[in-house]
């Protein structure tokens, strides 16, 4: 299982990229099935069949990842796999499967289900490739594959009045950021002569910082900032979270961000390990740490403050997601291997809780309520079980022990604080993050207050089908069970990233 393959033949390449290949084939099969049965099968049944098919594909891919995946790389680092990649890909596959599960709760599926599932799967392929990329070309292509699929998916419900407009906004902002990434990559290539990250690392050791190289680095960081929705590149997030179909919004909020964080860590530490600069004491030296620290700082402040005044819950979640990106950037900033490990762990567990909350919002909007604060009012009377799950999920996002959100944050902050020499900049950032979490309690608890203390404006129990209930209950159970018994999973994460 752990033999190292330097892929030379097509067989080797196929072995290393088996999960991605399975997903691509599943996407094509989904298209073929919808083409063959469209009109001959009832829409709901067709949609469910396609969802089961996609989940099956994701399951197969996860099985390969779990049991039969060798480590190695293809064509000198164009694509690589190791334990850390596998863990993160498993997380992404789980989050993607949960998003599709969420889609299965849809009683009235919108048209073009085949394309919808194929695009979801292709977006997941893009994320998988992003996780396995060790090469600027591959990073760019994978980023675009993910993004292009997500643009279409965002505007998929064309009957919604603002769907296309939101997709276009997402597309334009994303396109500009892609151009920035590409220009940055071209400068990096020009200054080093290499596109592969490990070659760049070698070429750069012991060289002084070139201004053009620094520019290239900053321009690429702008693009990555867009991907992980870090302030000030988060402008697309609130609209997309609000308007995109719920499964798509939850995929963008969870899996796509996990992949973004992983590749950001890989890009910075694997390619520019000597260029981090420092944020020690008051004498900061130039490097990407300063830029990233600034992004983290802005994300935490802007995300939390903007979330305070939102009336739409989905927009509120988007701004709070910006703040969460800010916390997770602390993990990328800490030089030990436990930093990126805890960032990835944090984003995956955060993804679990946000998918649960999206599931609940979807149930509420199916019951005829817009997703503003009033939708939550009296949830306790209308459905005690859903209200209890909602409480667990929201408290986990707020970081209350013993839930998983607390543990994830705790790990992030500890890994930032354990950095040798205790750089003052990092300590200040952790202090800011603690303050920001306290601010975030205001709106998280506000949501709970609406659900538990206010009387219902609407009466009657909440209708939800088995798919939705099982998703919400499972995510809530995961937040509490992982929070109480995190041991093995967390340890495996740390171990995988350490090697």
């Amino acid at each position, binding site marked *: 299982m752990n033999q190292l393959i330097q892929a030379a033949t097509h067989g080797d390449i196929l072995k290393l990229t088996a999960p991605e290949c399975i997903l691509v084939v599943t996407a094509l099969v989904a298209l073929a099935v919808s083409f063959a049965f469209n009109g001959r099968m009832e829409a709901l049944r067709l949609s469910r069949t396609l969802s089961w098919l996609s989940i099956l594909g994701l399951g197969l891919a996860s099985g390969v990842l779990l049991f039969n995946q060798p480590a190695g790389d293809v064509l000198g680092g164009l694509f690589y796999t190791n334990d850390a990649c596998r863990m993160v890909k498993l997380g992404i596959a789980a989050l993607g499967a949960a998003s599709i599960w969420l889609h299965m709760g849809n009683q009235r599926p919108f048209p073009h289900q085949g394309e919808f599932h194929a695009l979801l799967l292709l977006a997941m392929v893009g994320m998988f490739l992003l996780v396995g990329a060790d090469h*600027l*070309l591959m990073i*760019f*292509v994978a980023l*675009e594959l993910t993004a*292009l699929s997500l*643009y*279409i998916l965002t*505007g998929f419900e*064309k009957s919604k*009045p*603002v769907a*296309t*407009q*939101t*997709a*276009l*906004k997402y*597309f*334009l902002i994303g*396109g*500009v950021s*892609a*151009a*920035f990434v*590409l*220009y940055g*990559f*071209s*400068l990096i*290539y*020009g200054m080093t*002569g*290499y*596109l592969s990250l490990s070659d760049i690392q070698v070429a750069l050791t012991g060289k002084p910082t070139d201004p053009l190289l620094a520019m290239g680095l900053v321009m690429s960081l702008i693009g990555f900032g867009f991907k992980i929705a870090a302030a000030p590149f988060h*402008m697309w997030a*609130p*609209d997309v979270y609000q308007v995109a179909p719920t499964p798509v919004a939850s995929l963008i909020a969870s899996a796509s961000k996990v992949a973004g964080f992983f590749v950001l860590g890989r890009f910075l530490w694997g390619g520019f390990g000597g260029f981090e600069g420092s944020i020690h004491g008051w004498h900061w030296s130039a490097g990407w740490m300063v830029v990233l620290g600034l992004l983290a700082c802005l994300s935490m402040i802007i995300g939390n403050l903007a979330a305070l005044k939102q009336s739409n819950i989905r927009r509120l979640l988007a701004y709070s997601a910006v703040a969460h990106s800010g916390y997770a950037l602390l993990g990328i900033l800490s030089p030990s291997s436990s930093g990126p490990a805890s960032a990835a762990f944090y984003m995956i567990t955060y993804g679990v809780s946000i998918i649960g909350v999206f599931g609940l919002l979807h149930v509420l909007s199916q019951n005829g309520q817009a997703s503003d604060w009033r939708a939550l009012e009296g949830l306790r009377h209308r459905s005690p079980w859903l209200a209890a799950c909602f409480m667990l999920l929201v408290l986990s996002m707020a970081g209350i022990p013993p839930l998983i959100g607390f543990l994830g944050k705790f790990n992030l902050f500890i890994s930032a604080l354990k950095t040798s020499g205790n750089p003052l900049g990092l300590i200040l950032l952790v202090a800011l993050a603690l303050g920001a979490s306290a601010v975030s309690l205001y709106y998280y608890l506000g949501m709970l207050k609406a659900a538990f203390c206010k009387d219902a404006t609407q009466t009657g129990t909440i209708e939800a089908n088995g798919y939705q209930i099982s998703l919400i209950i499972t995510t809530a159970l995961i937040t509490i069970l992982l929070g109480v018994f995190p041991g093995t999973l967390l340890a495996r994460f740390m171990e995988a990233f350490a090697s």
Partner: protein
Amino acid sequence: MIGLEQYLIVSALLFSLGMMGVILRRNLIVIYMGLELMLNAANLALVSFSRFTDTIDGQVMVFFVITVAAAEVAVGLALIVALYRKRQTTEVGDLTSLKL
């Protein structure tokens, strides 16, 4: 003698022009043209770096970028057409139903 610097200056100019187009113009199609200009500026930089550092990687990357840009055209124009069908406009000034 035209050297690397001249190519880079042209590509930086193209990139800035594209960026200005995206920020200043009010028609979605023109904005989109600005976006393409930015991508092609990066392509020019990649090719000239490839030529002057005597490596082939940059040129290979440009092929991929051109392909990706073509895919982006497909998605972008499809979105613009879908929007036009719904709202009969391609001016961003008319699209105000999304607040910040």
